[in-house]
């Protein structure tokens, strides 16, 4: 089962290592991990996606909560949250493939952000499976290199994982 875990952490020395290290040494695997500052610069938010059954979900949530710099942990349920990922991908530009690349980018609501005679760079955002589908379309057209950000996710509605006044 794929899990999306939101972790609210203090912006302290080594916090990313602590979170990643804990997941590693408990024998679990991370699929994606993103981290960035929150509305309060003293705190960051880490979004982790990983495979795991109920045991893994429970253990990882409880073990993460034990870390001193971790303030809140929440499993985000699919229907209840919004997920996005950003892809930058560079494909070969040639007369034979150009129109197909442009069409694909258009259908997937991608943006051409760099263009030269031998390469095209496209930016696409969306749910991870949309990103994957776009990559599959481009693959036979000659991907030169690509970079995915990993998933960021927020719960729908007015509820927040953590409000800064809880911790200040």
């Amino acid at each position: 089962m794929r899990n999306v875990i939101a972790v609210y952490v203090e912006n302290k020395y080594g916090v990313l290592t602590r979170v990643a290290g804990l997941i590693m040494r408990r024998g679990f695997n991370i699929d994606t991990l993103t981290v960035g500052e929150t509305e309060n610069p003293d705190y960051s938010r880490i979004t982790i996606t990983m495979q795991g059954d109920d045991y893994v979900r429970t253990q990882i949530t409880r073990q993460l909560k034990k870390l001193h710099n971790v303030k809140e942990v929440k499993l985000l349920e699919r229907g209840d949250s919004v997920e996005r990922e950003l892809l930058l991908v560079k494909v070969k530009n040639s007369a034979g493939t150009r129109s197909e690349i442009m069409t694909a980018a258009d259908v997937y609501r991608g943006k051409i952000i760099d263009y030269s005679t031998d390469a095209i760079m496209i930016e696409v955002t969306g749910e991870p499976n949309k990103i994957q589908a776009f990559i599959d379309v481009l693959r036979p057209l000659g991907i030169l290199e690509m970079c995915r950000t990993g998933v960021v996710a927020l719960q729908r509605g007015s509820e927040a994982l953590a409000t800064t006044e809880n911790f200040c």
Partner: protein
Amino acid sequence: MQNEKTKRLRGARILIETLLEQGVTDVFGYPGGTVLDIYDELYHARRRLRHVLTAHEQGAAHAADGYARATGKVGVVIATSGPGATNLVTGLATAMLDSVPLVAITGNVATSMIGRDSFQEVDITGVTLPITKHNFFVQDVCELADTIREAFAIARSGRPGPVLIDIPKDVQQALCVFRPAPPAAPRSLPQSKEAKLDRAAALIEKAERPYIYIGGGALGCGLGEAVLALAEKLDAVVGCSFMGLTAVPTDAPRFLGMQGMHGRYAASAAFREADLILGVGVRFSDRATEGLPALNDRATVIQMDTDIAELGKNVPVDCGLHGDLRVLFLLLANRCAAQSHPDWAARVQALRSREAALLASAESAGETALTPQAMFRVINALRDPQTVIATDVGQHQMWTAQFAAFRQPHTLVSSGGLGTMGYGLGAAIGACIGTGKQTLLITGDGSFGMNLTELATAVTERLPLVILVFDNRSLGMVRQMQQTAFGGRLAWTDLSARKTDFVRVAEAFGAKGTRAETPAQFKKAFAAALKEKTPVLIDCRLDPELQAFSPLSLEEV
């Protein structure tokens, strides 16, 4: 004139003042280049704070650990950067696995030199990340006092554990205003909802063969009497993990002793036959439950722990309760009504009789030779029940768990989770200093050989330490596994080619040493040793073929 309350102090002095503020009276350590400033302040503070120099930083870490286990206070250890810091690693991991409150202070190279592979530089916060409850790297002297206060609060609160503070040299030398502050009150823990307690009480009510399984958490929370009272009310029996030893007196009527791989027959068998297991501050570790069929097929399992992550971690539980273990247990006990289970009581009595018979038959081998059972009869008869027993790891440790009589909580100091050979002597030194009383170290020739250099510390501090080396010229625990599972091929566990004379080793360090080869010699030597005020070692010669199997596995074989 500077105001007394807002004096600017150097970081090293702030460290000492904050340690005193936290109630620290003793620290263990070893000086070095990056802790020179701290050691100079320790010198000035020597009448307010006792520093015990060990022979090796690992010994200092184990001493701080033994001190903490025997007294319930936070143990403190100080080491220099690089090798000094890495020598703490085994001690920190030992404390982590057994939830012992420690604060380790390490020096490091100046912040301007960090990350350049400077002399004796090591990223000790990185190294100790998985084996500390938390660690700190202090970059600003003005954060030092609060960091130390926070470290003590973390080490003590909830499920205790070791915390490391790495302080670069320039931070020790920098000046900052120091404002004293009292130690923080213990933090309250989130607690399971009342409804869960009701559910647990309902499950208990249905029990016909109840078994209360206690661990280090129950010991740490002083729940021994409450556990026995609940056992009485429920007509239940009590067994423990290795870490739960001493929580209740060995001879308490409803107590069956330690269960598991090397545990007592009756405890392991009752655990196996129970239809309700109430785990109290215990993690159902593999050594304590190994070889037993899946729990939930035959028993309802309730687990209560300070650490919510322990609930269901090793075995699935039907009801998990978390929070302040003491509060939680008393709330649950109040919800339980009295029960009576004559069939279960009769069955347990039969198991106890079987255990006595198995023990008697296991011992018939040697009447004149020294045996662990014979030694523990002497130890149990002569030892003051307040005397702490520290052990190393191996057969002698399991014999201690099986045969030593404990009457007082925290009178066993031993490495359970990590199983650290070489732990015992340092830990015994720490326990002896912490309690201010004679301390008994039970060790083996293998374990003792690892860190016997701490004899120098025991002699320097003139500690009333009685060291019993269970000397079988072999790494007995591994040897017996090779005999059963590896065709008897003794791969480097036979130490008979070693010519170490432990009596003369003790004498070389300035301690006393004697040897015992028969029960009569042992009794005489032990009685004499208890009268000594300084370290004394008894080399107890045991047959290498003696095994530390549990009576349960004896029967199964």
